[in-house]
């Protein structure tokens, strides 16, 4: 039962991931990415990480993807033509390099197999994660909050239009 569910969800996430990188229009990629994130959330539930599954849906499939959808809609994009332009040779070279990395990853992971513990139902609860997060990982938690603050300030300063020089210029042009 669990194995069947895993295979179905795994195929769903792999298919969604392949669709993300092969779609022509970015909005389709965004929607398939949401599907991939949801299937990963289901896998988190199967792994006993209920809180992380909720956060996966709220933060990734919710907040981050809303940001993506917003930007895609705002930029008024046409369909990407990059696949035709880069040519088949470069594309297959890219996939071959990725396959090489896959071999490296598999080789690296082979040394860490063989762990098999019973599923602890109390491990992924808010209580157990919170006691670790606000105990041993208190300092990284605070640093993460500072990082988010820095990101907010950075984003605002990045996308702020440089309006004052332009408006001064046009006004000056009209006056003279």
């Amino acid at each position: 039962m669990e194995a069947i569910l895993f295979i179905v969800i795994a195929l769903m996430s792999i298919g969604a991931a392949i669709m993300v990188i092969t779609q022509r229009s970015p909005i389709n990629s965004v929607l398939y990415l949401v599907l991939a994130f949801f299937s990963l959330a289901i896998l988190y539930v199967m792994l006993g990480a209920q809180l992380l599954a909720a956060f996966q849906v709220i933060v990734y499939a919710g907040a981050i993807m809303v940001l993506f959808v917003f930007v895609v809609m705002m930029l008024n994009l046409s369909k990407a033509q990059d696949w035709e332009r880069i040519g088949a040779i470069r594309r297959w070279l890219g996939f071959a390099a990725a396959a090489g990395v896959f071999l490296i990853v598999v080789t690296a992971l082979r040394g860490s197999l063989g762990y098999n513990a019973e599923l602890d139902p109390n491990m992924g609860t808010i209580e157990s994660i919170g006691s670790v997060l606000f105990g041993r990982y208190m300092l990284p938690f605070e640093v993460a909050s500072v990082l988010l603050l820095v990101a907010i300030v950075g984003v605002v300063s990045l996308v702020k239009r440089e309006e004052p020089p332009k408006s001064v210029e046009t006004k000056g042009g009209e006056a003279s």
Partner: protein
Amino acid sequence: MTVTLEWYLGLSAILFVIGLGGVLTRRNVLIIFMSIELMLNAANLTFVAFSRYLPNIDGQVFVFFVMAVAAAEVAVGLAIIVTIYRRKGSLDIDQVNLMKW
């Protein structure tokens, strides 16, 4: 047939490599960015899988930090993409090569 650690590690390796293939083959900066998100999620899946099978709660706490960093990264990255689009009028990363050489 029980689901073991190997299954999850294999799935996360496959997802990571699909994301890497997207980064290497696509030239649209938005899709490259989404592929990076996919790679981050594959790493998260590895963390959670090890956290369940070791068993050790620290892996799940690390996923929280990865999510916080990913949120910050997405916000800053999309701001950069919007700025690129305003300046260049396109999202093709081959046209953004000022700092390449």
